[in-house]
């Protein structure tokens, strides 16, 4: 009888041990997987241009999360021999790099034809990216008293917690 009880205990201990190992492995794998995910942007086109975005993140004086409140009129001229920009006004959500204490910020974005930021038809910023309510992460530099971006394709990326975490790791 005692022997049977010992066998049962031993079996249960073995089963418990196996279960413990399995749970540990599953938890470990999922933690490992979530760590992997935090290294990646939430969209493939951002991942494909990760090096350029990293350069922008390192070059920027400020990186800000912000929501678009309004967009000023376009000058109607693409950048060429002269640099052309269109101003976008934002409500600041958070500051990832640099220091900025005000609740609003106006950023002059490059107007470059055929760029990711540009509209396909009109001489203006793309309304798909730049519309009131859209949340963006913006790479900014300050020139005199004004703020501007410096990359017509990846001067901004869409805001998400995942994208923010990737950028935090980069800088």
């Amino acid at each position, binding site marked *: 009888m005692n022997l049977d009880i010992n066998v049962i205990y031993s079996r249960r201990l073995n089963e418990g041990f196996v279960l413990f190992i399995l749970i540990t492995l599953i938890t470990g794998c999922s933690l490992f997987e979530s760590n992997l995910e935090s290294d990646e942007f939430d969209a493939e086109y951002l991942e494909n241009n990760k090096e350029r975005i990293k350069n922008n993140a390192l070059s920027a004086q400020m990186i800000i999360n912000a929501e678009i409140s309004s967009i000023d009129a376009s000058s109607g001229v693409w950048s060429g021999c002269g640099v052309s920009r269109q101003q976008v006004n934002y409500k600041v959500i958070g500051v990832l790099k640099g220091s900025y204490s005000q609740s609003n910020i106006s950023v002059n974005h490059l107007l*470059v034809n055929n760029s990711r930021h540009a509209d396909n038809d009109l001489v203006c910023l793309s309304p798909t990216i730049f519309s009131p309510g859209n949340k963006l992460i913006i790479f900014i530099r300050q020139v005199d008293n004004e703020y501007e971006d410096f990359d017509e394709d990846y001067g901004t990326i869409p805001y998400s917690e995942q994208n923010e975490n990737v950028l935090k790791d980069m800088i």
Partner: protein
Amino acid sequence: MVRIIYKSKIYFILITSLVLISFKVNSTITWQFTTTDPNIIALEQTFLMTFLTKSLTESPSFAALFNEIANSPNNVTIIIGLGQNFIVGGKIIPVVVDYYAGGGVMYLDLLDLSGYPNPVYNSETHSWEYGTAKPWALTIPCLFAHVLSEGYHAAKTGESYENCHKIAIDAENDVRKDMGQEDYPIMGRVWEKDNRSLSTDTGNINNWENEWDYYDNDANLIRISYEP
């Protein structure tokens, strides 16, 4: 109405032929015209050849840049557009239109370039007269250098506009030095310096016109009157 007066037809034909031949031999620079109007194309070709020849013969820096592009595997496309106008302060102002489109493609408006950047409105004929006064004839090679350099570096490196633009400004300044024109600003630089906008909201036609008054517009090489 299109009216062209050449100072020397024979000289013009000779240099035009030379440039045409050099294009045929080794150029990877493509010049495309957006218009199908043969008169306009003829006019734009006239500008192109005249100003290119002038640039090639008078600026070693421009010639070096041109040769580098022509002997490189990178294609640069310059799309020549029809004149575009901007409304500033209630008046129609023709200005030079050029822009970067990435991948070695540049858009350039030669009709506006012909009077770059100071056309004169003729109230009798109701047309804009584009005079290539001496300072302008000398700044046009700088503009050509800028456009070619910007498009070339975009094609060669795939870098963002700003990086190509910085290199293009250097190329433009080299040509300006060759021609002894360091002190002449060009419109793009003034725009950047003053953060000037051509929008109807902020444009000030009087200041804009006065900015360029000190240039002599009479010493013309070619004078063209064009009414769209």
